[in-house]
C-alpha cells in the first residue's frame, strides 16, 4: 500500500464469522438454549443497526452435539426473518464440530472468492458447556486439519458450565475465556452475545478480525500456549 500515486481500486472485502455452539442435552437446563436464542436475536438487531456490518461481514451458525449441523448458513443476518430453532441433542462431539466447520469455511470462502470478494481470515466464536465425548485423538486430529488448512480461521473460545478450560485453551487461536465459578451459564451466554456483537461491529469497522478489550463480565481469560 506504500505507493505514491493515488490508489483507485479496492475490491470489497468480506469477513466470514461463525458461531459454533454446543447444543448438547445439558443446554436444555437452566434456560441455556433460550439465552443462546436471545443472544442471536441481539446479534441480528446489532447488525441491523450497523449497515457497515451487512456490507463487510457474513455470519453463520453451526450447532453440535453428537453430530454437527448448519443452523444458519453464512449470510447477512440482518435480513434473516426467522432465526433458526436451536434444538439440543445428545453427546458432545468436538470432532464433528471441527469437521463441519472446516468444510463450511472452505466452501464459503471458495464461493465468496468466486463472487469476486476479497475474503478476510474467518473469525470463529466457539462456545461449549461440556467436555468432548469423542475420543481425544479423534477431535485433536480434526482440530489439526482445521488449524493447518489453507484458510485457517481465527478461533475465540468460551468455556461455560462443565467445559474444561484446558481443552478450550487448546482449541483457541486468538483468545480463550472461561466463565468464573458462580457465573450462571445463561448469564455467561448473554455476556458472550455482547462480546460477539462488539467484536463483529469492531471487526467490520476496522476491516480485520478484532476481539478487543478485557474478558467479558463473569469470565477470566487464559493465556494461550
Amino acid at each position: 500500500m506504500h505507493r505514491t500515486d493515488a490508489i483507485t481500486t479496492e475490491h470489497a472485502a468480506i469477513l466470514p464469522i461463525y458461531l459454533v455452539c454446543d447444543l448438547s442435552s445439558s443446554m436444555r437446563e437452566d434456560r441455556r438454549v433460550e439465552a443462546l436464542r436471545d443472544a442471536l436475536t441481539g446479534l441480528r438487531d446489532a447488525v441491523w443497526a450497523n449497515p457497515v456490518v451487512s456490507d463487510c461481514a457474513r455470519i453463520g451458525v453451526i450447532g453440535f452435539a453428537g453430530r454437527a449441523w448448519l443452523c444458519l448458513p453464512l449470510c447477512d443476518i440482518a435480513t434473516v426473518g426467522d432465526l433458526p430453532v436451536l434444538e439440543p441433542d445428545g453427546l458432545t462431539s468436538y470432532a464433528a464440530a471441527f469437521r463441519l466447520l472446516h468444510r463450511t469455511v472452505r466452501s464459503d470462502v471458495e464461493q465468496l472468492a468466486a463472487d469476486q470478494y476479497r475474503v478476510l481470515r474467518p473469525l470463529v466464536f466457539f462456545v461449549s458447556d461440556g467436555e468432548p465425548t469423542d475420543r481425544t485423538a479423534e477431535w485433536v486430529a480434526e482440530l489439526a486439519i482445521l488449524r493447518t488448512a489453507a484458510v485457517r480461521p481465527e478461533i475465540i473460545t468460551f468455556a461455560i458450565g462443565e467445559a474444561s478450560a484446558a481443552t478450550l485453551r487448546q482449541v483457541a487461536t486468538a483468545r480463550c475465556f472461561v466463565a468464573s465459578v458462580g457465573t450462571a451459564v445463561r448469564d455467561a451466554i448473554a455476556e458472550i452475545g455482547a462480546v460477539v456483537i462488539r467484536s463483529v461491529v469492531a471487526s467490520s469497522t476496522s476491516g480485520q478480525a478484532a476481539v478487543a478489550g478485557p474478558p467479558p463480565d463473569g469470565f477470566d481469560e487464559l493465556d494461550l500456549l
Partner: protein
Amino acid sequence: MTQPLAIDGAGLRAGAELGRGGQGRVVEVLGGAGRPAGEPLVAKWYLPSVDLDAAALTRLVAWRRSLADADRSTVDDIAAWPRAVLLRHGRAAGVLLPRVPPRFSIPVRLPSGSAGQVLSELQFLIAGPDLLTRRGIPDLDRPVRLRVLARFAAAVAVLHNHGVVLGDLSVKNVLWSVAGGEPAVYLLDCDALRLTGTNPAVRQPNSPGWDDPAFPGTQNQQSDRYKVALTVLRVLARDFHTRDPERARAALGREFLPLLRAGLSGRPDVRPAASAWREPLSTLSEEGM
C-alpha cells in the same frame, strides 16, 4: 468559580452504560459534584490497557476553555469535545464528554420488534439504497447528501483553522442530521484529536480502509484532507470501500471532479483544504434542487 480541569470520578452519579468498545466504556452521568453544569454529560472510562496521556487530555480540555465564547460555541456545535479529565484514585482514568444531542439519533424498529434509537453515523450516509431499504430507513437524495457533506467539510475546516488534527475518521465517529431544516454534523471520539505540534491523549490507529497511503504511520491535517475527500467520494458513490474518484463523476461533474482527484492524490501538497470543499458542495446541492 473556575471549573477545575480534572474532577474526581467518584463524586459522579453514574447512570446506565451507554456503550462499550475497545478503549473503554461510556456511562451516563446523572449528577454529582464538580461537573460542569448546564448540559447532559457522559463519562468515558478507559481500560487499564489504554495508554492514556493525561497531560494531552488536560490540554484538550484547557484548549476549549481558552476559546472565546463564540468560538467555543461553534466547536461545541460540531464536536463532542472533552469537558473535564476524570480521576480515579487521583489518576487520570477517563474523560467527561457532552452527551450526543438527540437530533443525531434515528428512531428505528429493530428486527426483534423492539423500538430503539441508533446514532445517525456516517455509515448510514454511505450505505447503499438496498442496505437502507431493507432496514426501512429513508434514503436522502443527492442534494441533501451534498449539503451534509458541505457541513462536514466546514466542520473539519473550523477545527483545522484552530490547529486541530482529526486523525482517525471512521464510519462510526461522524454523525449527521437533517432534522429541523439545516443539516448538521457532529464529530465523536474527540478525546483522540490532537492540537498541531502535540501528541494525542489516546493513540488512535487509522481505521483500515480509511488510511492515507501517503502517511501510513502518522496522522496530520494533510491526511485529514485525504479523509475528507474519501468521505465525499464514499458518500456520493454509496460505497464503503472505493477510492476511485471516477465513481463520483456523475455527482460532482466535470467542474469539481478534479477537486476530488486532488484530494485523493498521493501527493499531500496538492490536496485541497477542507474549507475548499464547502462552496463547490453547496453550489452543487443548489443546482440539484
